[in-house]
């Protein structure tokens, strides 16, 4: 058998190393005649048909899939709203793909998995520095599910006092749906509070918050890219109502905007995949950080420092009695497999940028959004930004002409933007597409 045929043969799994002679020897050792004899399955539930999936060689499949994905149109995306893209350096891509990281699993044997444990401990530590909160877990699936977990935590720690979670009336619709599902089995109710020209209407919020409130959720930046101006007051409203203050944000914004701990946040959720992960059709990495008080209520994995037999510092998964494999139906969450590998990449990217690089990148998100909004505003029948606020990465654009038609024209010229409403678009600019803003403005003008 030549090397080629070994890898191209189609009559078995190419990733099972057995030669026919080895298979025969193993069957003999087990004491059966064929593999089929090993299956203790009643006749009536056996499947005798064909699945109908045609095997392909690696070469064929790579050609086929690259052809399929090439059917995606080449567009310059000015898209955000919870899934943000920044340039990911090659070194992050390269190091994270080392098979020792990529093909390992949860660190049930910490002595032989110190490398990944340390990387996750470092990720947690970076999030502690960025949020100012002392506890960060080593990942949630994404920002939406992290918010769901935060509401559930609030429900548990404030269960005697109430059952209402207050969220802004303007929130990503997907996030709202996920939150609804996460609280479905809890008896918690979700209520909304009004916004005032793009940021929280704190007076209205204060009216709504009361004894029944277990958590107040606010975002900075908001889904429309506005930067919140009254965070400390929101925190005060929350503590006045004995409710948790949950702040939604993202890992780049954390480098520049007000530190969550300094404005009284009890829980920080959001997306960390903005660093470390290229645009990935919405695949995420959810942040979850909180105060020491709620340590034993935290969902997900936590890595802690300890010592080994030699007296050296070593890392291990810890406080596992919170988790499903020990606590079963009384666990803080059902999460098991998480987004560890994305957390590894995000930590690499933060360490690559350093504090200067991160502040620069975040500042660029403010400057680029500002100048693009100004440029678009100069077009006839266009107002940008709609809200008279500072913006981070993205902003709303009001158009006299129908927004869907403008978006379609932009798409034809090679640009993708969000349609928010009949006369509202949303545009997101980062380091990745900043070089194309002038072209976008030109195309926008043509579309009007």
């Amino acid at each position, binding site marked *: 058998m030549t090397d080629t045929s070994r890898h191209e043969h189609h009559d078995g799994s190419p990733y099972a190393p057995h030669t026919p002679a080895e298979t025969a020897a193993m069957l003999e050792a087990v004491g059966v005649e064929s593999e089929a004899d*090993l299956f203790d399955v009643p006749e009536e539930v056996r499947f005798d048909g064909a699945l109908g999936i045609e095997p392909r060689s*690696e070469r064929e499949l790579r050609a086929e899939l690259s052809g399929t994905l090439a059917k995606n149109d080449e567009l310059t995306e000015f898209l955000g709203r919870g899934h943000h893209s920044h340039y990911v350096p090659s070194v992050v891509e390269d190091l994270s793909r080392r098979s020792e990281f990529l093909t390992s699993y*949860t660190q049930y044997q910490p002595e032989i998995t110190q490398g990944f444990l340390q990387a996750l401990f470092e990720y947690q530590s970076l999030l502690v520095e960025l949020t100012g909160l002392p506890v960060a877990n080593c990942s949630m699936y994404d920002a939406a599910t992290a918010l769901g977990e935060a509401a559930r935590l609030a429900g548990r720690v404030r269960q005697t006092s109430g059952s209402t979670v207050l969220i802004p009336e303007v929130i990503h619709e997907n996030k709202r749906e996920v939150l609804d599902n996460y609280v479905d089995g809890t008896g918690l109710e979700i209520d909304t509070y009004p916004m005032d020209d793009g940021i929280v209407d704190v007076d209205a919020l204060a009216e709504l918050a009361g004894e029944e409130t277990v958590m107040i959720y606010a975002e900075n930046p908001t889904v429309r890219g506005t930067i919140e101006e009254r965070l400390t007051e929101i925190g005060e409203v929350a503590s006045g109502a004995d409710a948790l203050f949950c702040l939604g944000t993202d890992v780049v914004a954390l480098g520049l905007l007000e530190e969550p701990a300094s404005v009284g946040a009890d829980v920080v959720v959001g997306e960390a995949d903005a660093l470390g992960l290229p645009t990935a059709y919405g695949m995420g990495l959810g942040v979850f950080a909180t105060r020491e008080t709620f340590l034993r209520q935290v969902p997900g994995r936590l890595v802690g420092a300890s010592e080994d037999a030699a007296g050296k510092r070593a890392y291990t998964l810890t406080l596992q009695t919170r988790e499903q494999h020990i606590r079963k139906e009384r666990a803080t969450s059902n999460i098991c497999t998480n987004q560890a590998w994305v957390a590894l990449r995000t930590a690499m990217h933060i360490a690559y940028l350093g504090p200067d690089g991160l502040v620069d990148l975040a500042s660029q998100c403010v400057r680029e959004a500002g100048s693009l909004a100004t440029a678009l505003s100069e077009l006839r029948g266009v107002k940008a930004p709609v809200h008279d606020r500072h913006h981070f990465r993205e902003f709303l654009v009001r158009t006299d002409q129908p927004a869907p038609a403008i978006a379609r024209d932009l798409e034809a010229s090679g640009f993708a933007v969000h349609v928010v409403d009949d006369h509202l678009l949303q545009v997101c600019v980062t380091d990745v597409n900043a070089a194309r803003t002038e072209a976008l403005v030109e195309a926008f003008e043509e579309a009007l």
Partner: protein
Amino acid sequence: MNYDQARYGDDDRYEPLLSEKDTTTVDVGESSPLPDDLTRDSLELPGLSEPELARHYTRLSQMNWSVESGPYPLGSCTMKYNPSFTEDVAADPNGAVHPDRSDGTVQGTLEVLYGLQDSLARIGGMDAVTLQPPAGAAGEFTGILVAKAYHESRDDDRSEVIIPASAHGTNFASAAMAGYDVVELPSGDDGRVDLEALEAAVSEETAALMLTNPNTVGVFERDIVEIAEIVHDAGGLLYYDGANLNALLGRVRPGDMGFDVMHYNVHKTFATPHGGGGPGAGPVGVTEELAEFLPSPRVREREGHYELYDPERSIGKVHGYQGNWLVLVKAYAYIARLGDSGLEDASAKAVLNANYLASQIDYDIPYGPFHHEFAATAGDRDAADVAKRMLDYGVHPPTTKWPELVPEAMLTEPTEAESLDSLDDLAAAFDAAMADSDAELEPAPSKTTAGRIDQARAARNPRLSWRALGEEE
């Protein structure tokens, strides 16, 4: 086998932390384009040059075990080989698109997702599939929410989910998250579901029975048809936990066994890399009757055009977008690479490997016949100690002390990816560790980067960041 894991560092620690290599504080206000009251005052983080960063993470990687390092027979985790080419497929820049793009501009992405929905439906014997849940547990939660929506749509208020005592911990947690009371079902003497106990447990409160088959000791629930009948007669649904699907590919389909809803662990069965704890993906398959409740959106094809649509009575979303794309595309590639014959062979070899390994070790295995995994017992030895000693023989040990059905359990799943030689090495490690005296087990491991780690100390005095370490000094 001789083995010594890399061990960098000095007398106090192994590889220094990022923060011990560099810590820089910047004054944020100075360079900020925003008014001072909207920004943080300062930011303190490590910043490493690219060469330093490369060395740090390369060293960490060398202090980590992986499937490509050697056998990794964690029971119920299916640590099989992850084909390299799937990484290249996932890295295709044409696939790096935003989820809010209009359907017409992401036909390639939607075609892949549609193809995966279709493959999974075929493999599971299911009628409809959602790819949205980002992990197995998320799939369980989704599946139970779908079951709940189904019952509610019939004005049938049910409050309980029945789960065998030996089930995966996530089953209990997922059912509870969806608001159900959990009814724990004791196992029968043969490790299987006890039909009488099940008869006694079901009632008009039964929303579902969650079951994995083969079960968590690798034994096939031969009474599955009767089990399905009992649950269905009570008006409940049958949920299939796909964690053990690697035993059955192409040979048995959950749909044919009477399951109404199931999840797939693509990071187990379909060889997407486990990434040190994730990301995975936990697609959910259902029968026609439940399809209208699946999360929105799903992908459908109309005259060669792919589009997203919301199922009629959808439960809504369970993930911010469409789940873990980079994982899903790898699963699609793996399934297509193997096809019918490869998938069937993967399961056959996974079951053969487990049986061969079991035949080569000197351990009692209380329950059988088993399939892709078996639960050996360490007997009067501590399974955790035996496992630590196995590390010194150059292999990763199995899952220990679970399921509790087997005392001092060592739940072992070698997968189809281990060769005969590798299985012999693994068997030798099992037996050598068991033959060693308590005095040899107690200080183990010694060949790994770190020696035995004090777990109690970590929990008693939680230090979860370098800031916490610094405050202590």
